[in-house]
């Protein structure tokens, strides 16, 4: 048998190219393109009274300036609301260029196109926009108070109010022997990929076709949006995803204003046009996430078992809500984690503020939900004097209760039913890994040295691999090489490697013979996109099914040629052979030739094919139930998401003088079903953990009351360097195969980030004996908390 690739921690096929500097990211393309730059609002909320471009007109190299008034037809309408919901009663989306008003700093007001970006910025600087400032609504408190409105026609700044519940929460709380109330807050942060957004468009005036490259997480989404906005047939628009320098959620949002404006300008000017976002633009004109306030009442019995949980929260979604309610819906449902809540009710308000929009950032509402639930668990433990792990154990859903139906509706509109997971086993592994039961000794030793250390943990469940579908296409060429395509996109997850591992196994071909293309609508037109840890589950499964279809055909054609029953055939190293009959074999390339009745002998495989008779002379050359070529295409569309889970434990040391927090150990137990490539999964966890630490200790969006983002640069936004992350991440895997897909996999992309803030808060509390209700926490905030504790 040839090597089985599935499960092997092999190095990535992507790397060679990227290590030589031969990657092709968005701004590496289109050297002949004109450059676009944008005039953006310096005000959080203002009326535009005048746009004067006259001073810009004699800038050399200027090609065009566009404002709202130039936009035709559908481009002049508001951008789409991607995911409507019945409770989203007041959904507002922006215009591609501001019309009359701006609603956040960074909103695009005018687009300048020039020979290069320097010149485009020269011209943009000379455009004089007169604003009449309006009061800015910044932060959840101001949005709720609604003394001022972000949109005149949206009362209370309220886009949506949504409630879900199971059981009678009021009765459960009234009857509970213990009830606690907690107020909990999480600040804004952002995906912050190292490469910003960017788009390049070429209009082919002769063929009347548009070709677009975008640094996106969804090429099919961009394609459909541009076709609709520019009134082009879908078949005449190609969208290609080049190498993408990270996404983490922000690039799933589409169409960005620039993604429709740049192709429009390229068509008007009949020249390629490119927009590449700079870092400041990324801070003020893309998207953030995480900002939420939560107010919780929890009832529990003397053993710490939950009886009722009543959660009210407020979600700050920024100036517009083009991505809908996905983030707060995820918080509402995934807050429950591995626990049985008793009766549960959750209500959220999604509120407008004069800040940049909110769309999912890795974790997408889960870090907030987990923070809330895990604070509740710690509060119960404190109240009853129980070990924190004991309270969790007592509330776990047990393995024999799987599949477990929460009686709620998940983000995909499907029932929230956990398919699998063994939470007690995960916790036992975690306690073992971190040495939970021996920690008191370590604490005493540290204390004797004048040091303060603390331990904390947090558990989560993550719905991954949401539908509706992905597809895969596998074609075996006459060279024997296998070309694979799937429509979703890659931003560094190593899809080309893991999908090749799947196909090499399914077909029995050498890994090097498999080449995978993602996110190119020319190769695969139907796709959803890369988000919600869905790529491996969805496209991995679809590609496996497509490879099986191609294999079935290969065996059938080879069976004909070798005069053997397909059931007696196997494929090893790209050769189909009769099991137990040495010499009776045919290469897959030759099978590919035989699969096509048009057989010009272009290559050696075709020449080799002449020795085999094939096809049934009683049937047409391509029988009715067949097609020429050796290909497989299939789709994967599960009934519902599959649920991964994990638990993190952290040991921290807090400096008695400076209140600095140092992470001494970071332990992860993670169940993402079967692992295709453990090395890649661990890499995903490492990156996620770093973002979790960032959200717990460093990153926040510092808006002032006027809606100015005070830290819109890498100088002031504290993205961790190597010195800020734990020096090692200790990982233990549990593999509970998912019953929801043919490979047993669950998503792994977001897991690392989800419980970070909760686990670190728990550990700091444990070290300090101070209750934390808000994250992230800086040394000065911790120092203040200490001081107020001392002064009572």
């Amino acid at each position, binding site marked *: 048998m040839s090597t089985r690739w599935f499960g092997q921690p092999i190095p990535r096929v992507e790397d060679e190219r990227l*290590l030589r500097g031969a990657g092709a*990211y968005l*701004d590496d393309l289109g050297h002949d393109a004109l450059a676009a730059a944008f005039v953006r609002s310096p005000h959080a909320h203002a009326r535009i009274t005048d746009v004067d471009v006259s001073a810009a007109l004699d800038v050399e190299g200027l090609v065009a300036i566009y404002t709202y008034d130039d936009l035709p037809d559908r481009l002049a309408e508001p951008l789409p609301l991607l995911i409507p919901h019945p409770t989203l009663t007041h959904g507002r989306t922006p215009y591609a260029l501001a019309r009359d008003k701006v609603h956040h700093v960074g909103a695009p007001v005018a687009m300048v196109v020039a020979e290069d970006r320097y010149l485009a910025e020269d011209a943009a600087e000379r455009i004089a926009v007169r604003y009449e400032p309006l009061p800015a609504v910044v932060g959840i408190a101001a949005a709720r108070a609604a003394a001022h409105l972000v949109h005149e026609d949206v009362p209370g700044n309220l886009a949506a109010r949504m409630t879900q519940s199971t059981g009678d929460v009021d009765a459960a709380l009234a009857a509970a022997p213990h009830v606690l109330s907690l107020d909990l807050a999480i600040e804004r942060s952002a995906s912050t990929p*190292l490469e910003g957004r960017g788009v390049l468009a070429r209009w082919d005036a002769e063929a009347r076709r548009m070709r677009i490259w975008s640094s996106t997480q969804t090429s099919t989404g961009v394609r459909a949006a541009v076709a609709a906005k520019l009134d082009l047939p879908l078949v005449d628009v190609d969208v290609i995803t080049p190498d993408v320098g990270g996404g983490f959620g922000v690039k799933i949002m589409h169409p960005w204003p620039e993604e429709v404006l740049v192709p429009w300008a390229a068509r008007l000017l009949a020249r390629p046009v490119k927009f590449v976002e700079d870092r400041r633009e990324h801070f003020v004109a893309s998207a953030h996430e995480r900002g939420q306030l939560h107010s919780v009442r929890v009832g529990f019995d003397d053993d710490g078992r939950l009886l009722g949980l009543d959660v009210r929260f407020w979600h700050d979604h920024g100036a517009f809500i083009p991505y809908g309610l996905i983030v707060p819906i995820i918080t509402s449902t995934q807050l429950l984690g591995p626990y049985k809540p008793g009766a549960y009710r959750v209500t959220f308000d999604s509120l407008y503020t004069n800040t940049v929009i909110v769309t999912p950032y890795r974790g997408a509402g889960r870090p907030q939900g987990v923070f809330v639930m895990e604070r509740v668990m710690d509060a119960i433990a404190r109240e009853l004097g129980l070990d924190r792990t004991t309270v969790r154990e007592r509330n776990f859903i047990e393995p024999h209760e799987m599949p477990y139906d929460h009686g709620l509706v998940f983000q995909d509109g499907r029932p929230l039913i956990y398919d699998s997971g063994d939470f007690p086993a995960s916790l036992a592994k975690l306690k073992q890994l971190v040495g939970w039961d021996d920690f008191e000794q370590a604490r005493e030793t540290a204390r004797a040295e004048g040091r303060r250390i603390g331990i904390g943990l947090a558990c989560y469940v993550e719905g991954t691999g949401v539908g509706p579908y992905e597809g895969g296409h596998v074609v075996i060429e006459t060279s024997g090489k296998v070309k694979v395509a799937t429509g979703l996109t890659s931003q560094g997850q190593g899809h080309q490697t893991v999908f090749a591992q799947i196909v090499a196994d399914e077909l029995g071909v050498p890994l090097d013979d498999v080449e995978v293309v993602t996110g190119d609508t020319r190769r695969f037109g139907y796709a959803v996109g890369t988000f919600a840890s869905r790529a491996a589950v969805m496209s991995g499964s679809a590609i496996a099914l497509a490879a099986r279809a191609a294999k079935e055909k290969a065996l059938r054609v080879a069976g004909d040629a070798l005069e053997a029953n397909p059931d007696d055939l196997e494929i090893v190293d790209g050769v189909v052979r009769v099991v137990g009959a040495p010499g009776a074999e045919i290469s897959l390339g030759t099978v590919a030739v035989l699969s096509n009745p048009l057989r010009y002998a272009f290559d050696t495989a075709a020449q080799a094919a002449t020795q085999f008779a094939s096809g049934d002379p009683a049937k047409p050359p391509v029988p009715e139930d067949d097609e020429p070529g050796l290909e497989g295409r299939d789709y994967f569309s599960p009934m519902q998401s599959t649920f991964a889970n994990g638990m993190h434990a952290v040991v921290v040391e807090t400096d008695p003088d400076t209140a600095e927090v140092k992470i001494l150990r970071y332990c992860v137990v993670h169940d993402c079903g079967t692992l295709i490539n453990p090395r*890649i999964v661990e890499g995903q966890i490492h*990156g996620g953990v770093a973002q979790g630490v960032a959200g717990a200790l460093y990153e926040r969006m510092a808006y002032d009351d006027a809606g100015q983002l005070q830290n819109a640069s*890498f*100088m002031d936004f504290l993205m961790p360097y*190597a010195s800020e992350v734990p020096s090692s991440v200790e990982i233990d895997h549990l593999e509970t195969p998912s019953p929801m897909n043919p490979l047993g996999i669950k998503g792994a992309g977001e897991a690392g980030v989800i419980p970070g803030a909760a686990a670190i808060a728990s550990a700091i509390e444990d070290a300090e004996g101070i209750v934390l209700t808000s994250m992230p926490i800086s040394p000065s905030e911790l120092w203040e908390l200490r001081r107020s504790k001392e002064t009572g």
Partner: protein
Amino acid sequence: MSELIDVVLTVNGVPRPLSIPARRLLSDCLRHDLRLTGTHVGCEHGVCGACTVLVDGLPMRSCLLLAVSVEGNDITTVEGLAEPDGALSAVQQAFRDCHGLQCGFCTPGFLTTVTAGLRDNPDPDEQQARDMIGGNLCRCTGYQNIVRAVLRAAELAR
């Protein structure tokens, strides 16, 4: 305004004559004039390190240098790191072996930085390896495997 200045830049050992405006950043010049797009731009304000190139062997942020200011210096970009026979350098190979890159956008800056760092200190311990990359941002890897790659590169070079 954009009066052009004639310069000859020596990049990866090759003299490259250019006519560029004085304000042209070295990063833009490498990427767009010379089409050496391996050098990436993540912030344009000197913080992320993605644009790091070697100037006379020293790591420098090409987004903070004007192209006209480095005439006469030896500039090495990621495209110039491979061995003369085309094989990956020890540092490049180590990043591959250790899964030290995901999206790869930050990678060229790390490779140049580590190449220079190991020249100064060919035998770093783990803390020194961490310090060596302490000025470069990566959003994907959490740095764990980059630190490993630094140590592995030192090992490969021995």
